[in-house]
């Protein structure tokens, strides 16, 4: 007999049949016979009511109170029968004390979305004018969780082999020049997979795709009249729901299927997916913010509060998620397990992750339980975990983020050092040597793979702007140019902004190629910002969080206009992929443990074997022994990289090659387009094997064969 006796209704309320539900899983779930289970918890609520709407209806069609027999511990659970779940929206009313000084802010007049809901309605299409009088603007919905993965699984590319491309779903394809069917969507990104393959990256890191409200803090630009919005999305409404407006099918409620299809297709093409996740705060803001979910469900549990009941603001956005409360910790864990198992997400980058290491009063923890739980979780064991190891409260943990042997970090010190080098600052060469080796000074026990190397990211200048502007130009943000970072370490090459000066434009391109080269020959994991491979500019704005316009949208015509940059980027990426000696998992030992006649790495200057680390030095060269690739397990070509950030050309004495081999030139950034880089395997022999002139502010790569 296969008839279950616990799946038939026992109660009826205003025509709706139901019974006590199942405690787990939390959230809503469809049971085999079409019944729907709801489960939600609150530590301090005195009662809970399930509120049901027909899709997009202004008023609920029924509100069913949870009686005491429907509560187990702090969990309220109920199973409903006979409803079309695709035409349903639900929320909760929680009653309880409103005592802010004790941390409680219950308000039963508010309808709250389910923190575990897998889809949200209300922002189905991007910037569709919402009904501002809606009594329940962000509505929990119920979805199918099944999907035909056709054998797909997480790719598990060794982390040392990753080349990450940081992208924004909407910005990537919204521009007319992208020539896709549904601009700005998951589906459009899928159309662009051939481009990503052509570029050569093998991992895409998506800026927030959890449901957020693009209308949050929307306002008019006083100068242009344009609406400024929450474009980047670093303000989560729900951690389990993909943003419907990023799906062409969001209007049909199929965003989950569309995103899964994208992930499956990226995997088929050898590209991993990392999500940028924002567990440091929510969109509910401070005590003046809206009730969306957490505040009304269990304010004291979900948020870090001062002894007086105000919100700590370590995120700079009004509130701070109480990540190390055991219940919130479990929610974060459930959430990431869900994304890894149901969406096949390969890794996560944690925004302002230092907050994850604060206790409930905000003090930094030596052994933060959430960070540890994520590191040792069995479902997440093959996922990449990457921390943005600082927060807005002044906690800076680059090099000291609790890693448990698993966590990598966005290496902000790499970014700063390479930028200073590129603008020819003095006193940087000693630090440069560390950054090129995967920052062993910061990660002595974790290896180079702990270092996510980047020179640019969504926050700050693009690469083109980094070589075109000395100062930020954020006037379009409507904050009197007060927002955004001031320590950009950028140099405009002589003129601020766009210019027709050929020499300056040539130098800017050369500097971009220098940056790409250094990034691709550094040990650690390189990350490229979307569009840097084609010279994307944001006109000197280093904080474009609020622009749904061409400041953020990638202009694909740049591919033609800056074909030389794209060509260089593509070839230098290919070079990294072709040479395992650039992708070591362990730090160098600075010795010849393979009897190859060379140490695994050696540093040089204008004289071979003598690196100049003095204050005024602006040159450094290094040689990677091919015999020592991947800890000596693979034989590769020996590679010599010469960096001259002095403003004039200098003669570099070359170290001798081994075994009668010769030096061949792979790249020389001081050369004009067409002569600056070649294909792997087509390097030209160097005429003078003893020395080479490296042009001012340029980089060369030689291979020995």
């Amino acid at each position: 007999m296969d008839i279950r006796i616990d799946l038939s209704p026992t109660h009826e309320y205003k025509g709706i049949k139901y019974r006590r539900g199942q405690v787990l899983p939390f959230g809503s779930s469809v049971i085999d016979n079409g019944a729907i289970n709801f489960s939600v918890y609150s530590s301090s609520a005195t009662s809970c009511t399930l509120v049901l709407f027909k899709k997009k209806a202004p008023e609920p069609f029924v509100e069913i109170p949870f009686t005491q027999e429907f509560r187990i511990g702090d969990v309220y659970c109920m199973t409903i029968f006979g409803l079309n779940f695709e035409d349903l929206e639900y929320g909760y009313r929680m009653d309880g004390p409103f005592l802010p000084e004790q941390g409680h802010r219950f308000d039963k007049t508010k309808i709250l979305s389910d923190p575990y809901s897998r889809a949200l309605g209300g922002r189905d299409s991007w910037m569709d004018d919402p009904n501002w009088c809606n009594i329940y603007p962000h509505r929990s919905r119920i979805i199918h969780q099944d999907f035909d993965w056709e054998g797909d699984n997480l790719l598990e590319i060794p982390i040392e082999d990753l080349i990450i491309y940081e992208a924004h779903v909407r910005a990537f394809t919204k521009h007319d020049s992208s020539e896709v069917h549904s601009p700005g969507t998951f589906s459009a990104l899928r159309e662009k997979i051939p481009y990503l393959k052509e570029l050569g990256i093998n991992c895409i890191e998506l800026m927030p795709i959890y449901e957020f409200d693009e209308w949050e803090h929307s306002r008019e630009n006083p100068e242009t009249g344009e609406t400024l919005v929450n474009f980047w999305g670093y303000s989560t409404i729900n951690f389990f729901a993909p943003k419907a407006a990023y799906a062409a099918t969001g209007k049909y409620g199929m965003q989950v299927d569309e995103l899964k299809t994208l992930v499956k297709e990226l995997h088929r093409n050898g590209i991993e997916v990392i999500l940028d996740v924002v567990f440091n705060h929510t969109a509910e803001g401070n005590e003046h913010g809206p009730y969306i979910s957490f505040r009304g469900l269990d304010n004291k549990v979900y948020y870090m509060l001062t002894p007086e009941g105000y919100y700590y603001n370590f995120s700079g956005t009004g509130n701070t998620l109480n990540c190390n409360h055991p219940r919130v910790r479990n929610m974060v864990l459930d959430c990431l397990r869900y994304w890894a198992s149901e969406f096949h997400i390969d890794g996560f980058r944690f925004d302002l992750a230092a907050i994850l290491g604060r206790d409930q009063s905000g003090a930094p923890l030596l052994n933060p339980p959430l960070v540890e739980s994520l590191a040792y979780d069995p479902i997440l064991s093959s996922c990449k975990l990457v921390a943005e190891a600082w927060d807005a409260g002044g906690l800076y943990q680059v090099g000291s983020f609790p890693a448990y042997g698993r966590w990598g970090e966005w290496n902000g010190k790499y970014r700063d050092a390479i930028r200073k080098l590129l603008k020819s600052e003095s006193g940087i060469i000693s630090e440069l040597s560390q950054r090129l080796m995967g920052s062993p000074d910061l990660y002595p026990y974790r290896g180079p793979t702990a270092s996510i190397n980047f020179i640019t990211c969504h926050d700050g200048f693009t690469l083109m702007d980094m070589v075109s502007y000395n100062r930020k130009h954020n006037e379009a943000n409507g904050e009197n140019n007060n927002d955004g970072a001031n320590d950009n370490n950028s140099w405009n090459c002589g003129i601020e902004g766009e210019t027709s000066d050929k020499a300056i434009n040539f130098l800017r391109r050369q500097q971009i190629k220098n940056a790409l080269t250094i990034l691709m020959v550094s040990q650690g994991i390189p990350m490229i910002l979307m569009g840097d491979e084609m010279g994307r500019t944001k006109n000197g704005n280093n904080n474009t969080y609020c622009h749904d316009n061409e400041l953020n949208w990638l202009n694909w015509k740049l591919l033609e206009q800056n074909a030389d940059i794209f060509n260089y980027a593509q070839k230098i990426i290919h070079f990294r992929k072709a040479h395992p000696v650039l992708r070591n998992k362990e730090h160098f030992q600075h010795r010849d443990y393979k009897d190859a006649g060379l140490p695994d790495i050696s540093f040089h200057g204008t004289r071979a074997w003598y690196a100049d680390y003095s204050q005024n030095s602006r040159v450094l060269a290094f040689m990677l022994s091919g015999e020592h690739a991947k800890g000596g397990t693979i034989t590769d070509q020996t590679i010599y990289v010469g960096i001259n950030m002095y403003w004039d050309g200098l003669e570099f004495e070359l170290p001798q090659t081994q075994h009668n081999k010769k030096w061949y030139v792979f790249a020389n950034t001081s050369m004009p387009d067409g002569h600056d880089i070649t294909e792997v395997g087509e390097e030209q022999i160097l005429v003078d094997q003893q020395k080479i002139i490296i042009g001012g502010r340029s980089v060369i790569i030689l291979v020995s064969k």
Partner: protein
Amino acid sequence: MALSITTKMSQDGKVATLDLVGEIDSLTAREFKKELEAAFVESEKLGTLKYLVLNLEGLEFMSSAGLRVFIFANQTKPDLNIHVIKPQEAILDALEKTGLMHSVKIVSENPES
């Protein structure tokens, strides 16, 4: 709006044609799946089913639940050719964006006719 389904089976059991009129949501998708299963059983009595023809000209709405019945058909009979006739624009859009276009072929006429 309800769903009405009319099924025709070719004499040799090679082609099953389902005319779908109305809307497929999470409730009516069960009827669609049942009808499909019945067609599979009937075709086995006559021969080997090669073509499943779904005439969607009269179908005004198909939800995520409906798409899943397509996948069910595809997984149950991996060698089956699924032909879809005249889907309305929103349905075609959903088929494309959710990746199901790989599994079906959009045609203008029933290969049986």
